[in-house]
């Protein structure tokens, strides 16, 4: 799959933003006044900034409002509805902390759960794709949630929770990669089933339908990611999980904390790039590629 920068930025930063909103809503930290204002500005910059970035890859972003209508069947629509709901409820909760210095616990918990809901609905956009066997697995929503919760805890300065969640995230990610590598084969879609010609013999793509490239090949066939997958995985585990945990365990300093956040974000950006770049869509089989 083509790793579109706008979608990678969205997945990374909105995940962190909604993760931070979750911990704020649950009352893991209860800032008030100007302190609360700064916390919520950071969370909203990440969450909303990511959402805005995600509209950059749309052909017609001016029609985005229509995307709230099909929540009955579409995970993308559910994500939009959930995001607006979470951001509205958390704004009320934030206003209580900033302006009145009171914690409206009910709004906080609802907003926190809705924030997780946004991350979950995002992950299901990918996990529902039968055409991309690598994504169609429980590890996809699990990783989105763990990264959001872990990264959010890291931003919120919840050192112990962050360390535990990041270690869990690293383990689940390694498991997701290991099983994901076999999933395309296990799904059973082959050139034989794609063409229905397997009963005659071995099928080979002889001539593509066109001399140049096309939308399908640009969007779905991306082989660079797989070439360097092993090195990238080591880099991701180091930057997104290991280094932040080590920095958290060291005696607290603001420099270490900032480094942990920067390292985590760099790692998650790489992780998301690989998440797309490495995923194989079955349509590639019609082109004799994966």
């Amino acid at each position: 799959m083509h790793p579109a920068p706008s979608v990678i930025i969205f997945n990374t930063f909105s995940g962190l933003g909604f993760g931070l909103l979750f911990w704020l809503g649950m009352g893991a930290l209860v800032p008030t006044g100007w302190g609360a204002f700064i916390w919520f500005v950071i969370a909203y910059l990440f969450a909303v900034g990511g959402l805005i970035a995600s509209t950059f890859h749309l052909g017609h972003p001016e029609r985005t409002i229509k995307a709230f209508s099909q929540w009955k069947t579409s995970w993308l629509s559910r994500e939009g509805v959930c995001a607006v709901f979470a951001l509205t409820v958390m704004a009320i909760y934030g206003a209580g902390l900033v302006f009145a210095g009171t914690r409206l616990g009910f709004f906080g918990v609802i907003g926190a759960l809705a924030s997780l809901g946004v991350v979950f609905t995002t992950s299901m956009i990918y996990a529902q794709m039968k055409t991309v066997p690598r994504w169609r697995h429980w590890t996809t929503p699990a990783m989105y949630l763990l990264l959001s919760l872990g990264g959010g805890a890291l931003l919120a300065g919840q050192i112990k929770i962050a360390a535990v969640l990041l270690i869990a995230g690293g383990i689940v990610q390694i498991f997701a990669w290991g099983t994901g590598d076999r999933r395309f084969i296990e799904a059973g879609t082959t050139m034989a089933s794609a063409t229905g010609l397997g009963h005659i013999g071995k099928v080979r793509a002889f001539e593509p339908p066109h001399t140049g490239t096309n939308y399908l090949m640009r969007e779905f066939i991306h082989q660079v990611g797989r070439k360097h997958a092993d090195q990238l995985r080591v880099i991701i585990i180091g930057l997104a999980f290991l280094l932040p945990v080590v920095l958290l365990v060291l005696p607290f300093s603001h420099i270490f904390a900032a480094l942990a956040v920067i390292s985590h974000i760099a790692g998650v950006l790489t992780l998301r790039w690989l998440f797309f770049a490495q995923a194989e869509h079955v349509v590639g089989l019609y082109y004799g590629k994966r």
Partner: protein
Amino acid sequence: MTQLPPPSAKKLGLVIDLDTCVGCHACVVSCKGWNTENYGAPLSDQNAYSGAASGTFLNRVHSYEVQPEQGAAQLIHFPKSCLHCEDAPCVTVCPTGASYKRAEDGIVLVNESDCIGCGLCAWACPYGARELDAKEGVMKKCTLCVDRIYNENLPEEDRQPACVRTCPAGARHFGDLGDAESDVSKLVAERGGFDLMPEQGTRPVNKYLPPRPKDVEPEFDILAPYLEPVAQDGAGFAHWLDKALSALPGGAK
């Protein structure tokens, strides 16, 4: 609405005969010709006259080489367009309701004025039947020439998809696959028509007819008695001539 309608009795679709298709791409050209100037946004091309030409097509013809365990390889031309699936995953993923399946005849269409160009329907389609137009930013797909098949302004023989109308080999057939008595349904039953990627669970309406088995050459050649080398009996004039010529310098042994 992107909820799939209950299965329609009428299931309009194509039957593509892989035995007959000669790979001329006439269907590709006629499809682009009709659909670029009729229903919806035109099908744009980018850098059409450069080395990096690319464009939007609703129908493309692949060619595959199939190597049986014994005998010569076969070359099979393989036209591919939207299969108008009964469980169309491209419809349910659409966040705006632009992508829909018609309740009355099962045709899958895009309402381009509602399409935000997110591309998710193309992700959900295992067949590569949908292409986002680079100029218009909306999703394009085969309409089964919905603006021809019901068009009473056209002569009756033209009320079929452009690709079917133009195919010089008669490799493409259009009809109601929901009606077991229709010509296309009979053709599918007779020739063992099959689904592409059945394991994806999309239940395509369009069917493909497999190439017919190739003739197997008989073990013996009926002309053999007339073509047998002479002088194998080791006697007579021909035998003497064979030996005599072989004995000359450079003669074939």
